[in-house]
């Protein structure tokens, strides 16, 4: 018999697995697809974890999560990239194989950190660190945005697993703020593409001391 706890574990695994697979994807559509799948699993985790914490109506919050992170954010980024005819090939400091190796190291570090940090869930630490790592090893603007949103997924996972989720209004507010941030970043990335004819963060050197 498939229990709620088992589904909870499946969604936790899915959230992390798709985030790791996303790390090595060299093209924008693939990266967005895996981010959407990871976020979809997070929405599933919100449902199962909230039910396990005794919440009766977790479906609205999960649906809002799906709308914002699985549908809206990838659509906005794809639209912004297509509008300026940005290259779908992403720029990186590390090749995919090396990126997966660093991701593996981060998973090991996360085990160590979760043992040292009282009560911090492994999934949350791993997602936050993976998001930060993604922002460092990738050079293009879209990866920076997705790295930030992966980090935010880690924070959301912390909220779900440790606190049983946020109050409805607050959850909606946080999602609204995060998606507004993603929209602004997409708008800025469009301007960078128009000004520099590239989405490479290395071109942003005007303001160095």
């Amino acid at each position, binding site marked *: 018999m498939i229990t709620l706890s088992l589904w909870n574990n499946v969604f936790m695994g899915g959230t992390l697995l798709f985030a790791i697979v996303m790390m090595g994807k060299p093209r924008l559509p693939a990266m967005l697809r895996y981010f959407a799948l990871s976020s979809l699993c997070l929405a599933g985790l919100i449902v199962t974890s909230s039910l396990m914490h005794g919440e009766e109506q977790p479906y609205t919050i999960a649906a809002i999560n799906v709308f914002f992170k699985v549908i809206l954010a990838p659509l906005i980024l794809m639209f912004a990239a297509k509008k300026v005819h940005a290259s779908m090939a992403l720029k990186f400091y590390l090749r995919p194989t090396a990126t997966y190796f660093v991701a593996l190291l981060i998973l090991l570090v996360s085990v160590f950190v979760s043992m040292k*940090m*009282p*009560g*911090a869930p492994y999934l*949350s630490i791993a997602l*936050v660190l993976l998001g*930060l790592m993604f*922002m460092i090893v990738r050079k293009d*603007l879209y990866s*920076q945005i997705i790295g*930030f949103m992966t*980090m*935010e997924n880690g*924070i959301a996972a*912390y*909220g779900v697993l*440790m*606190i*049983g989720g*946020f*109050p409805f209004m*607050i959850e909606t*507010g*946080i999602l609204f*703020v*995060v998606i*507004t*941030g993603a929209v*602004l*970043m997409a708008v*800025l*990335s469009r*301007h*960078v593409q128009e*000004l*520099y004819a590239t989405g490479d963060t290395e071109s*942003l050197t*005007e*303001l160095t*001391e």
Partner: protein
Amino acid sequence: MFIFLNIFLFAAASAFLARTEKQIRMSALFFAVLGSGAFLLLSAVFLSGAFRYGWNVPFAANWFYADRMNLDWLRASSYYVWFMVALISFTYLTAIIASVRYIGEESREHLLTLDKVRLYFFCVPLFILSMLIAVFADHLGVLWIALEGTTLTTTLLVALYRKDASIEAAWKFIILCSVGIGISMIGLLMMVHAGLESGLDVFKAFSYASLREQTGLFPVDAVKLAFVFILVGIGTKVGFVPMHTWLPDAHSKTPSPVSALLSGVLLNVAFFVLLRFKILTDSTLGDSTWTDHLMIGFGLLSVVVAAFFILQPRNYKRMLAYSSVEHMGLMGFASGLGPVGMLALTIHSVFHTLAKSALFFTAGEILLSQKTTKISGVKNLMKKAPITATLFALGILAIIAIPPSGLFTSEFMLVGAGLLSVPWLTIVLLLALSMIAFSMLKSTMIMLYAVDEEGTQESVDHTERFTLTHAVVITQIVLIVLLGLLVTTPTVQNAFTLISQSI
């Protein structure tokens, strides 16, 4: 309360309802007078009532709004909240008056289109609203949303000119601040988790006031770790080194009145939020030594690093931005020095707000007349624009804490308290402060008196008009001098002590 907060929403909406550029500016001014007037009045009533008649501010304020609507998300929990509200409101009013002149001038010169003027006057009230909510926030989720709101509303202002440097500054700003605020969220959630573990229900665990009542039951290690996340996260917003890299770029590339708001109040608001969690952590640990060391460390590092960057400034707006890093460092240092340090910090925040916003307004005037932000491009200003030059010099003297600027009083207290508890670090601090004062004065003298290559007579324009911005800056400098004298009197110092102890 919600009625008053709505004024800012109306102000934002009016930017899109008004038809002409002049109508946009005038409606923004109208709502600024209304909104800041309302909040300044409320601050004056509650603070003066508290000092004269011993009102309990939280009690006096609570009947006014949240509880009646069964919402505990916002709360005026201390004198310090109303003190911050007064600072925000005053700077908002001055910034909008300066914007009426500054944006009008840039619009006339076709540097800004009508759509950009709309965007500007749409974002500024929302930015102020976000700061007010962050100050009033009792619910940690609301606090986080408001802090992130300040980033989002100002990103478009930083990118307003759509030039390569402003887009780059906006990109760095949104990425670094969003990541910083994200990291602080982990700390906030750890605090909430500590609250849940101590027996609070999920709604009360999100309330700062409820958490403060339960601190004795929190696990010490978890709270320490949470504070580190909050310090790094909100420290990014404060501009502590090494998380400060967004600050000089954003503050120098945005329109000058917004730079004044960013440097003058946003940093103070972020610092206030950080202080609230320092107090929560101290209360859990039963001692402030641990957090004091962290704050002194970050504070000193910020002052020293800012001193090296100010040593060879090329851009006067960047110089002022690094000066903000320095002053946040000073406030961080002061916050680790016990009650005297807290008093110095409170006084410092008022005078830093006044002096820095006055300097950015004047920098805007220099930019309008000289068309450059490079120090090497501005020469002989005392002859070309004597009013602006004089006000800029007075502002610089105030910010480097020359008496009777109130910053002298706060820094004197800070150094006194520092020499007693951390003498060697205070000596390093004094050296860094001397370097900063010397460098800023040197750059100012170059801008004011260096003769330009074209020859003095041809390039000198004696017909500088007295503008609205000049009037605002003169008011601020008069306040700096008057309050600077008053702050040495026992009555005013007692009032500041009450405010500083109420956080």
